[in-house]
């Protein structure tokens, strides 16, 4: 079997370190959904959204007091809190599976049951990302429809991002099926005398 070039090994190891650090930050990110709930608890969600630095208004639209008053604060807060919590959890799951997969690649263990499990975990994690995106896109749709602006900061997912995530999910599922088939073929080849 061909040995992995040293530079590929180096960059793969570097990537493992970066992903592991990002996992640590992602755990801290669980505070974010709590922030949304805090916002909802304190009331006047619409004003809080408008005051946020990440919220950019469409210049041509005038915001009425009626729109501000009728803004569905709690649905927005719940959609964003649930969506961001699912999204962070899914990202951690995805990153951990990725670290496992990259570690096996560095050890030149390409065909193993561990790798199949890791690839399947990537698919499951991406399913959660799609669910999280769906909630977040719903929440951001509320601000877009009522407050005539858009979120330009964290968790700014829109319906387009949800469709993109579904696309990635399909690609990952196809890779998972092909990889599993390759494993079966290799097992059969190993047991052909």
């Amino acid at each position: 079997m061909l040995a992995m070039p040293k530079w590929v090994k180096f960059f793969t190891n570097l990537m493992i370190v970066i992903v592991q650090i990002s996992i640590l930050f992602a755990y801290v990110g669980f505070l974010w959904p709590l922030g949304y709930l805090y916002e909802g608890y304190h009331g006047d969600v619409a004003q809080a959204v408008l005051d946020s630095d990440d919220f950019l208004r469409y210049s041509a639209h005038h915001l009425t007091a009626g729109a501000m008053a009728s803004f569905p604060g709690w649905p927005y807060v719940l959609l964003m809190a649930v969506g961001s919590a699912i999204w962070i959890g899914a990202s951690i799951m995805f990153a951990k599976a990725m670290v496992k997969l990259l570690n096996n690649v560095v050890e030149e263990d390409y065909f193993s049951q561990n790798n199949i499990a890791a690839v399947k975990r990537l698919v499951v994690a991406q399913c959660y990302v799609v669910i999280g995106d769906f909630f977040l896109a719903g929440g951001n749709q509320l601000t877009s429809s009522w407050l005539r602006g858009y979120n330009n900061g964290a968790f700014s997912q829109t319906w387009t991002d949800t469709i993109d995530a579904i696309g990635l999910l399909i690609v990952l599922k196809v890779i998972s099926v092909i990889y599993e088939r390759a494993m079966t073929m290799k097992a059969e080849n190993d047991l052909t005398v």
Partner: protein
Amino acid sequence: MVKLTLNVVMAERNISSQELAAAIDITPANLSILKTGKAKAIRFSTLEKICRVLECQPGDILKYVADPTESEDE
């Protein structure tokens, strides 16, 4: 399912696993896969070598046995 009766023929010819593995040029590990029935397939070239060394026909080392689980499904 097809079963390998290599053990029986080897015993009749009084040949050890190591001797057979060396004679047909395969590793003892691969011969063990054959003997224990773990093999998924056997190459014609391997079968030919086994038959030549053991002076037998493919039918002497391969036997078809009806799978009871398959007949239940039918």
